[in-house]
């Protein structure tokens, strides 16, 4: 069919099954917005900043596993989107971002709102394109979606000069992609998996180490089955929370810098690390030479470059986590004796009893951890929790009872403050019936608070629970521990009126200073079904514990003052 490039973009999005596009118009992308105006194949959400558009598409993709789509204009529209691209890139989230570009006759002339989008985004996209001919446009769009969602997923940028979106051409959307140089998913080798299975059978203290890849490959059910079959205990990274489910007796919890005692001790003492979709990030491993010191390592990853990047691997397996786990299950069935790891599980149970994930509650002041635990009791399973970055993020990770994959949406790799509210908007678009709560801090929330108006306009009621300690709390914590209490530029005593801010954008605000007020505010916000700020004054100097200082050994944790009074006696 004959149509212009802008219409081709819309047709391609519809052909890909896209229901929602997050974006912001501008000069170079106007042709496409004109075509959007004339179509009804998908909905467009107007965010109030391009960064938020990409985070919203990202939150959407994390919530439902589909490719998120964002659209921005050239120059500043694109550069604003870069943080969103990098956030998605670091966590391997499938996105297609379409940016306008100056017309081709202006390319390279420092034209108005011209910037080298392909050059800037190269290190923070899985792949990117500058479209140079209308004939290439359908194929490039098809390839962009294919590359974004296959193999190790990631964001793909398609930069389209304005003359191409105006130009007429013949639109035939390809059924298949043909990129001979692109390797998608290698099938795991039978002999690699068998070798790993043998190692598991020989191990005395094996440990399943679950990463974000578990969520991305929808492997949660298979992994629960593998753990149940073998009775091998599990630890999760920040990105894998929800994979095992909080109530699962084989889940020790989160490991790493703010992991719990039992998880970090398990990693320090295991004799076989079975890494599934994890990448040995420095926030997980601490000091590499001490990490899993007594362990052989099975490393399952879809990206061969992750294997052997940081640690030497004894049993490398390149493949999709879900597939490999299913192969492991059939290899272990009838052979593995769950009793063989009983002693190991008992040691870990004692560690967990000795220092459970705990905090000292108070009647004087609200403790941030209390808010998270209470949130878990009140909204629990049915909610989606997004977060920004900092102390509140770690408290949410430690204390919220995540029951299922994709329930927890946060920026793990890049650590992007300002992610939570727009990502919450995306998640709520994906699951309108679920309560979406952004756990945030008084630092982070200001970084994309313009999205209050987006949420209000489109009736996307994200509830923002602000753990307000009048500090950039995580940096303050490091300043306390490592900089002798010199609180350089972290004191946020000068505060906006959060209640009024929410109300100014047609939402609801609550100022909370007692536990009762929190319960009432949350209940009211859910009932009123409006975007909300619940501004909670929490203990100012609360630290996130346990903590492994950067590049420290995992078994060398700073622990909360109180341990279990039973000292591990059961």
């Amino acid at each position: 069919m004959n149509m212009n490039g802008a219409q081709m973009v819309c047709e391609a999005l519809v052909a890909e099954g896209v229901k929602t596009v997050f974006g912001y118009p501008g000069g170079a992308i106007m042709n496409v917005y004109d075509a959007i105006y004339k179509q009804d194949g998908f909905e467009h959400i107007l965010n109030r900043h391009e960064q938020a558009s990409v985070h919203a598409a990202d939150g959407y993709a994390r919530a439902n596993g589909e490719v998120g789509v964002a659209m921005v204009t050239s120059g500043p529209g694109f550069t604003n989107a870069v943080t969103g691209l990098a956030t998605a890139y670091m966590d391997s989230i499938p996105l297609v971002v379409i940016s306008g570009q100056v017309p081709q006759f202006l390319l390279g002339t420092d034209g108005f709102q011209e910037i080298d989008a392909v050059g800037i985004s190269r290190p923070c996209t899985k792949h990117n394109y500058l479209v140079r001919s209308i004939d290439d446009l359908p194929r490039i769009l098809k390839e962009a979606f294919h590359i974004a969602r296959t193999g190790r997923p990631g964001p793909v940028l398609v930069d389209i000069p304005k003359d191409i979106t105006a130009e007429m051409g013949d639109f035939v959307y390809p059924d298949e992609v043909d990129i001979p140089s692109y390797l998608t998913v290698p099938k795991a080798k039978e002999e690699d998996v068998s070798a790993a299975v043998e190692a598991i059978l020989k191990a005395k203290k094996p440990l399943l180490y679950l990463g974000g890849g578990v969520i991305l490959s929808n492997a949660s059910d298979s992994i629960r089955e593998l753990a149940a079959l073998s009775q091998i205990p599990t630890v999760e990274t920040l990105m894998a929370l929800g994979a095992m489910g909080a109530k699962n007796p084989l889940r020790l919890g989160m490991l790493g810098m703010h992991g719990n005692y039992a998880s970090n001790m398990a990693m320090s003492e295991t004799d076989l690390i079975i890494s599934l979709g994890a990448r040995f990030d420095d926030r997980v491993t601490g000091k590499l030479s001490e990490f899993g010191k007594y362990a052989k390592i099975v490393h399952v990853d879809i990206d061969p470059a992750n294997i052997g990047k940081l640690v030497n691997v004894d049993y490398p397996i390149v493949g999709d986590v879900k597939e490999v786990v299913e192969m492991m299950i059939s290899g272990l069935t009838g052979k593995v004796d769950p009793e063989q790891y009983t002693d190991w599980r008992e040691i870990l149970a004692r560690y967990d009893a000795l220092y459970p994930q705990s905090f000292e509650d108070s009647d004087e002041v609200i403790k941030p951890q209390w808010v998270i635990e209470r949130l878990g009791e009140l909204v629990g399973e049915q909610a989606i929790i997004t977060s920004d970055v900092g102390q509140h993020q770690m408290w949410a990770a430690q204390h919220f009872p995540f029951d299922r994959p994709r329930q927890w949406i946060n920026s793990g790799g890049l650590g992007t403050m300002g992610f939570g509210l727009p990502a919450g908007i995306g998640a709520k678009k994906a699951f309108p019936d679920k309560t979406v709560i952004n756990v945030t801090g008084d630092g982070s929330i200001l970084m994309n608070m313009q999205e209050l108006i987006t949420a209000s306009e489109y009736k996307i009621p994200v509830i923002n629970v602000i753990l307000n300690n009048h500090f950039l709390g995580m940096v303050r914590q490091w300043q306390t521990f490592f900089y002798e209490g010199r609180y350089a530029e972290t004191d946020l005593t000068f505060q906006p009126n959060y209640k009024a801010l929410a109300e100014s954008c047609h939402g609801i605000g609550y100022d909370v200073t007692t536990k009762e007020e929190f319960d009432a505010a949350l209940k009211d916000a859910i009932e009123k079904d409006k975007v909300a700020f619940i501004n909670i004054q929490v203990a100012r100097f609360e630290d996130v514990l346990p903590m492994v200082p950067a590049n420290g050994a995992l078994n060398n944790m700073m622990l909360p003052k109180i341990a279990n009074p039973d000292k591990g006696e059961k």
Partner: protein
Amino acid sequence: MTEVRRVISIVVENESSVLSRISGLFSGRGYNIETLTVAPIPGSKRSRVTIETRGDERTIVQITKQLNKLIPVYEVIEHSEMVEKEMVLVKFPLTESLADIEVLCEAYNGTIVNVGLDMCIGMVADEPSRVKHFIEAVGRYNPIEIVRGGVVAIER
């Protein structure tokens, strides 16, 4: 870990941004490029990029894996079984002995390729280590300019 020198040969789709993807990967991840050559492969839509690099064994493996992840990369060839050659052009003042220069160039499989009023140009194409020696050796003939071509390599 000890550093090794390695020549990596990369077959890529012949498109405008591919060289920046490769060089950007090296600079962004802190890998070394000692020399880099690129030219189309005759009779195809592909190009060959040859990079001479240095790094410990883990880095060399990472370079190969990361290059393989680039979408327009077809093949990454990295092993020690390569025939390698490098070319160098050297401009000498004619106040130096033309005969000496000619003998030196011939000793390194080269020759004098141009003689002007006040200068001559010698050309040598040889194994990279020998080219390095040649460049050391010409130092005594007061070279005006030395232009190295970078390594090209082909599998044995």
